[in-house]
């Protein structure tokens, strides 16, 4: 223990070490604060939904109530869905800044609605967010390098190496102790503020511990790299330069190459094609006999097949039916698109096993539920909700039940847990 105290004193008397640790503390806390501010902004936006929604639906209900037409109610009512950030989201904002976390949907064709984005400034999103994941993945390795690159070479260059090595406890144990001390300090500087922020945000203790371990593992990787480079007995300068070059390659260059490779390996052109095809299918309904559309609709929704036949006048049940048929007509394309997204995600996760930078980012965003998988799961929730919503309106439309003011309140509410 006394040896550790001595090592700590030795380290903390070095200006470079103190500046580095201080700077990393400030950066970590700033990133945590920025992440928490962003997440609380998102929570506030989600919390503000009911008020805005009540105003909007209230106005629609007021005039729909006159005719009690369920079709108008369904056509004009937008129902909010949202993706509440997980407690851990503040640490890794992931895709939450570019993927909409609030989306209002109607009981009409979902494929024309679900890819809509929210307002965001693309120029601000371009460089990436300043969150804890960024500090850990991008910046922390630079601090490990700054503190560990000259562990042995520095002593050799200062002429102390032989003095230390000639001491009974001056061998490998000394360098291990010094490496671990630096690691422990960096870990504390990253981990303690994180753990506090996570505890405040209500993250489960197991998740906090898992991430603390992840931080340690990532730091260990970089410290290990420093030790390996140190073994080559180069000068401190050469160590620093080669470690920084490794950092550049592992953290910046290879992930960008990986991105290019993944998008090349799994081309995704279907996105816009879904929208184009769905819109053709939906609008085509105006040009074919309405019975044909209804037949297709009843085939997939037999529970409504005994609804009264269509008259000469416009009826909203036909309108809702052809929207649904339009959605169903592109379901193959949607599945293909989804498969493409999932295989892109799978490859990226696979890369994470090879590249620690990607691995840590992937793990953090997947634990924080801010990655592509979480986005797709959220889309599934919206799909479920949309189905409930349609069936709610179908219950009025296909049975010709009047839709009054009170019925607006009976509309299913979005539930993230479902």
């Amino acid at each position, binding site marked *: 223990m*006394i*040896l550790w105290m*001595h090592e700590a*004193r*030795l380290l903390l*008397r*070095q200006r470079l070490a103190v500046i580095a640790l201080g700077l990393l503390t400030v950066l970590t806390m700033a990133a945590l604060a920025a992440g928490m501010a962003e997440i609380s902004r998102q929570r506030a936006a989600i919390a503000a939904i009911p008020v805005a929604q009540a105003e909007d639906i209230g106005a629609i209900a007021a005039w729909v109530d006159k005719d009690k037409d369920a079709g108008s109610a369904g056509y004009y009512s937008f129902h909010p869905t949202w993706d509440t950030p997980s407690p851990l989201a503040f640490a890794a904002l992931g895709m939450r800044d570019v993927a909409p976390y609030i989306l209002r949907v109607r009981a009409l064709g979902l494929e024309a609605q679900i890819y809509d984005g929210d307002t965001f400034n693309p120029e601000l999103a371009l460089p990436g967010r300043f969150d804890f994941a960024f500090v850990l993945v991008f910046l922390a390795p630079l601090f490990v390098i700054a503190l560990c690159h000259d562990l042995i070479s520095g002593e050799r260059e*200062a*002429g*102390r190496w*032989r*003095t*230390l*090595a*000639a*001491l*009974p*406890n*001056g*061998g490998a144990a*000394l360098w291990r102790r010094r490496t671990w001390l630096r690691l422990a300090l960096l870990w504390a500087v990253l981990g303690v503020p994180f753990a506090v922020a996570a505890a405040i945000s209500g993250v489960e203790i197991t998740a906090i511990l898992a991430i603390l371990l992840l931080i340690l593992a990532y730091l260990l990787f970089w410290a290990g790299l420093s030790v390996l480079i140190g073994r080559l007995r180069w000068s401190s300068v050469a160590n620093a330069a080669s470690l920084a070059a490794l950092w550049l390659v592992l953290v910046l260059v290879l992930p960008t190459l990986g991105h290019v490779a993944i998008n090349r390996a799994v081309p995704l052109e279907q996105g816009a094609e879904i929208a184009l095809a769905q819109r053709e299918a939906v609008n085509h309904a105006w040009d074919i006999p309405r019975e044909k559309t209804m037949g297709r609709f009843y085939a997939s929704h037999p529970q409504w097949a005994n609804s009264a036949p269509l008259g000469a006048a416009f009826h909203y049940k036909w309108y809702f039916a052809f929207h649904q048929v339009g959605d169903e007509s592109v379901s193959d394309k949607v599945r293909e698109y989804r498969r493409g997204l999932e295989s892109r995600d799978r490859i990226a996760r696979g890369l994470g096993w090879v590249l620690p930078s990607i691995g840590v980012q992937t793990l953090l965003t997947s634990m924080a539920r801010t990655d592509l998988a979480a986005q797709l799961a959220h889309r599934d929730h919206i799909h479920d909700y949309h189905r409930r919503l349609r069936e709610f309106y179908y219950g009025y439309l296909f049975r010709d039940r009047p839709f009054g003011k009170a019925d607006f309140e009976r509309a299913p509410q979005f539930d993230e847990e479902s």
Partner: protein
Amino acid sequence: MTEALTPILIDDLAVTYGNHQVLAGLSLSAPAGSVTALLGGNGAGKSTTLSALLGFVKASSGRVSVCGIDPRTAPDEARRHIAYLPENVALYEHLTAVENAQYLLALSGGKQDRAAIAAAFAAAGLQERGWDQRLGAFSKGMRQKVAIAVALLREVPVLLLDEPTSGLDPRATADFNALVLAVRGRGTAVLMVTHDLLGAAHISDRICFLECGRIVQDVAAQGPERFDVRALHARFAAPAKGLAA
């Protein structure tokens, strides 16, 4: 004296770096309370001998033992018995003299109380006002005194010195020599690698001349006046065969 207690014992030691034979059958032993000087030209194998005692290099044949311990197989155990001062004693410049001593003592597993350190500093001739100064401003002689004080505190049976007086002014050299004799007086075996024949002649019990990795001349003496300095100097100053090779 039994072999186990002989502080420094080197027997027919051979060391090769790649194809280059640095030590070729070197034998040397130093009893407790003695000063042995190791002289020789550049590349004669002086520093390698110290490295072998510290367990830094591997013997291709022969035997090394420090107080009966093989420094290669049990380096930490052997180093517990050795204090070593490199040619330039470099310590931590951003720590004070006392802090440096505390740190080195901690690393050697010794006691680190301030009173003992102060006593050792005083014995080593370090001015009291320098004790709590950062080492950045210390001269080589002062830094050596800190290191010697640590060696004194550790009460080790073996003290290895690598060119201790090169770069010291005559006054500091005299101080240092006095200190070495004091250490010898406490029963320590001192092995000193040096270029300084005259200085060595003053304090050594024995002077060994190294050439091409083996001892070519071994002069034992009871006092400096017994050495034929002139003859030794002529031999020492002649172009070393090891260097020419």
